[in-house]
Structure formats: C-alpha cells, structure tokens
C-alpha cells in the first residue's frame, strides 16, 4: 500500500514512542468518523443481526426464538419470489455499464455544447426517488406517454398499465434504474478516461492502431480499476434495490415486483415483524457478500487488486 511510505522519519528513531504517537494522531483524526459510524452504523448492524433470532415489534421487548425466523422465511414463497426478483434485477447492471461507458466515450471530446449534454445526462441522478417515482408513474400510466409512443410505433396492440403487468412491471422499474444510473456511471467513467495518460493513447495511434483497436487494447485494460468500481457498486445497488420499487409499484401486482429489500421493509413496517425482517436482511447481506467476492475474484484474475 502506498501509505506505508508515509513515515520516513519515524524509522530512524527509537521504535515504540513514535509509533504510539502516530497511532494516537491517527485515531484523533479518525475519532469523529469512528464515533458517528459506531453509534449510527455499526450499532444498528449488530442489533439488526441479533434481531434475526428474535420476535420483535418495537413496542414489546424482543423475545428470543432461535432459528424460527429463518424457518418462516424458507417456507414463505413470497420471500423466494423477492430473492428471484433481486437476482433478476442484476440484468440491469451490464445494460447500465455498457451504455454509461459508451456515453462517456461519446462525450469525452471537445465539441461545442458538450458540457450541456453531460449535464443533461446527469439530471436524472440528482432527481430524488420521490420525484422520479411521480414522474415515471405519469409516464407509465395507461393514458401516459409510454403507451402513446408504443402505439405510434406499432409496438403495442393496446395501451396498458406498465407498472401493473405481472411480468413486464419489474422491467419497467428497471428502466427507471437505468435512466437514473447511466449519468452517474458515465461521470465516473469520464473521470477515469480523463485520468488516462494521453501519451499512451497517442503512441497507440502513431503505431497505426484504429480507434476501435486502441480502445480494446489500450483504453479498456487501463480503465479496469474504474470498471471494477462501477460494476461492483452497480451490482450491490441492484441486489439492494428498494426505492424505485417502493415508489412505483409497492411490490405488486401480487408480489411480482417485490425485491428482497422491499420484502424486508414490508415485514418490518407493514407487518411489524422486525425479527423476520432482520433475518431476511441477513440473507441479502450474505448474497451481496458472495457476489462482491466473486466479482473481485474475476477482476483479480485479470491481475488487478481493487484496493
């Protein structure tokens, strides 16, 4: 790690005292963050994990029930539907990443008005989910614009309520995730592209490589840290998707768009079964962990350390 070079003076002095001093200084710097994280992030995490083994409705003290919550979960078909939907949601990751990368390449040039386009692509990112949900509800309504466009292009036989279709609704929500996501990742890719050493790209071009070849053999490999970061963030966000579904379908029709975290929310705040919700939350955490380990592994095989 680069930080290990940080103490050239310390090594020439007696060992213990400066080390202690450094540690003290380090933890002083970290103190505000650690206190806040400890109280507001780690404590709820620990509490939430314990709750998975309890029956708890907030108003009565928790009652320990062992593995009961997990048994209920495994027997609940709705939970499996929710897990399946969260995994299906992963399909949005390659779509977002591909389009975001292409967009980044498109806008990474000096053109009149290019900053305006960049800004336009970023507008969905700064739109809150509450607002995005309202807007897209209007778009998808039976009398909304999406149906009109579909009819005009001859793609739809008749207008229908997109968010209420047992199979299509989930994909309609994914489109909103896509809409909100491409700008975010475009900016990250753009930053990655602009940080690439220009000399290397020049050299490739001088060697007579075409644009496409240069991209495949020079740009893409060097972008790998950014790719890893973006795909990892995007994968985790997909597994943990909640807001879009909550504001647009609420999980319906008949649970067909319920995702894992929406299931957690419903158990906690609509049925007041916080223990069950915590158990389901643990499941999601484990899935997220497995996916990110896999992810890092795939990238590491390409010779990359993520951090």
């Amino acid at each position, binding site marked *: 790690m680069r930080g290990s070079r940080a103490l050239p003076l310390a090594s020439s002095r007696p060992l213990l005292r400066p080390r202690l001093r*450094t540690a003290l200084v*380090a933890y002083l710097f970290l103190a505000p963050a650690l206190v*806040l994280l400890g109280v507001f992030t*780690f404590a709820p995490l620990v509490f939430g994990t314990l709750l998975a083994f309890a029956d708890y409705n907030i108003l009565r003290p928790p009652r320990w029930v062992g593995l009961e919550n997990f048994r209920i979960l495994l027997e609940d078909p709705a939970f499996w539907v929710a897990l399946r939907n969260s995994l299906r949601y992963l399909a949005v990751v390659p779509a977002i990443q591909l389009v975001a990368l292409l967009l980044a390449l498109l806008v990474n040039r000096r053109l009149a008005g290019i*900053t305006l386009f960049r800004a336009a692509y970023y507008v969905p990112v700064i*739109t809150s989910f509450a*607002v995005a949900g309202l807007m897209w509800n209007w778009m998808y309504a039976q*009398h909304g614009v999406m149906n009109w466009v579909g009819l005009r292009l001859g793609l739809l036989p008749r207008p229908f309520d997109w968010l209420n279709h047992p199979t299509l609704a989930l994909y309609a929500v994914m489109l909103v995730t896509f809409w909100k996501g491409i700008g975010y990742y475009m900016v990250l890719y753009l930053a990655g592209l602009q940080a690439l050493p220009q000399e290397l790209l020049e050299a490739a071009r001088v060697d007579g490589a075409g644009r496409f070849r240069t991209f495949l053999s020079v740009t893409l490999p060097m972008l790998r840290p950014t790719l890893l970061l973006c795909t990892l963030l995007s994968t985790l966000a997909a597994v943990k998707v909640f807001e879009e579904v909550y504001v647009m379908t609420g999980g319906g029709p008949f649970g067909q768009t319920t995702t894992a975290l929406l299931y957690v929310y419903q158990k906690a705040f609509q049925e007041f079964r*916080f223990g069950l919700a915590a158990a389901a939350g643990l499941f999601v*955490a484990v899935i997220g962990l497995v996916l990110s380990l896999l992810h890092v592994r795939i990238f590491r095989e390409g010779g990359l350390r993520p951090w």
Partner: protein
Amino acid sequence: MVTKLRSAVGHMLLYGLLGVVALFTLFPFLWTLRTALSTAGSVFTFPPRFLPEKAGLGNFTEVVRTLPVGRYFLNSVVLTVYGVTGTLAVASLAAYPLARLDFPGRNLLLLALLGTLLLPNEAGFVVNFLTLSQLGLVNTYTGVVLPSLASVVGIFLLRQAYLAIPQELVDAARVDGASEFRIWAQIVLPLSRPALAALGVFSFVAHWNSFIWPLVVLKDPDRYPLAVGLLYLQGLFAHSTRLIAAGTVLAMLPILAVFCFAQRFFLRGLEGALR
C-alpha cells in the same frame, strides 16, 4: 473534401445520438414542467399534448400561496449546508490517516468500512431513532444530519485523492517540523480541493433530496425541508396533479442550479479521485 464531408456527416450523427439520449434523460422532467405550466385543461389526455395549455405560472403561485415554500426552502438550505459541511469535515479528517499514516488497525478499519457498504441496514431506522431520542435530538436538525455525516463513500473518495498527492511535499513539511494537523490543513486539503468539491456536490444532492429520515426525526412541520413539505400537496383532500408537478419543479430547480455551477469542479474532482 470527402473527409470533410465524412466528418460533417459524422458530427451530425454524433449530435443526433447525443440528442436522442438527452431526450430520454430529460423527458420526464420536461413533461413535469409542461404539466406545471399548464393552467387549464386536463392533465391526462390521450393522445398526450406536448405543449402546456394556457401556459402560465399560476400553479407556482398557488403552491407558494398554500404552502410556506419560502420557509421550507430556508430549512432545506440550513439542513443541506449543515449536512455538507459536516460530511466534508468528518470525511476529510478521517481519510488522512487512512491514506498517509501507518498505524495499527488500519487495514482492519478499511475492511470494516467496506463491510458497511455491503450490509443492508434496515434496523438502522429504528435503532437510530431510539439513539437520537436518548440523546434528546429528536426534532432537531442535528438529529436529521448526524446519522449520515460519516459517509463511507466520501471517506474512500477523499482517501484516493490524498493518495495521489506527491510524497515529497509531505516529507518536506515533516522535515520543517510541521504537525500532522498542519500538513493536513495546509498541504493535503488545498491540493484535494476538486475531490472535496465532488464530495460536496454528492452530499448536497443527498441532503437536499432526503425526505424519509427528516420526516421521521422532525416533529414540527415548521422545520420541514422542501422535500418533506411538498408531501402536503398529496393530501387527503387536495391531490392536484398540476400543483404537485409545480412543487416538484420548485424542489428541483436549486439542485439543477448548483449542479450547473459545480459541474466543472465536479469532473476534475473525480479525476483526481480515481487515479
């Protein structure tokens, strides 16, 4: 001549493509703006009407008349400024030792921080509310911002930026006998300005848009920020689509302005962060 023509056609194609994507990303907002500007006729007609009917600012004045929008706006500003300064202060301090000091427990800490990104935190809602009420912070802005002040993503973003600062600069200061705090304040921070700006914009967006947590923590409607106050437009007795659209536009304008202003900074900041 041929190449010139080809590049002209290429340009046109490029702009066409850029335009189509922009239409996709902007359309919902433009549609909302259209609804907000129409003062007559029906909101839902089929086929849809793309220009406002009897365009005017009537809906905006109506929103301002029925809700204390000015007050909500000020509340939002206070909350957001509080949140952004706090986030920047906490993250910029924490990132320093993680990037530039060697101390026991550092790797463990980095792992633990990453872990928080993986785990869902549904119990956080309840536990944090209980903690805040123990601390007597319910119905205060401190209670609203405190749980989200320590931004793990922010810490990582700034750590990456700090790592990019040449070691010689830091070493020179150490030889001069500068304390770590002075190195942080006088060398590292000024050099990380773009990354700080980027984090500032991220956290501005997050604080400006957040509504669930403020709604839970704040009791007194006079303290609601804009995002929460506008919920009153979707009430039991008056659910007017045009007014909701106008409120939506009002809530989005400040953030659009900030983004347009900070855009240059923002891209440069991320550049430094990802190197």
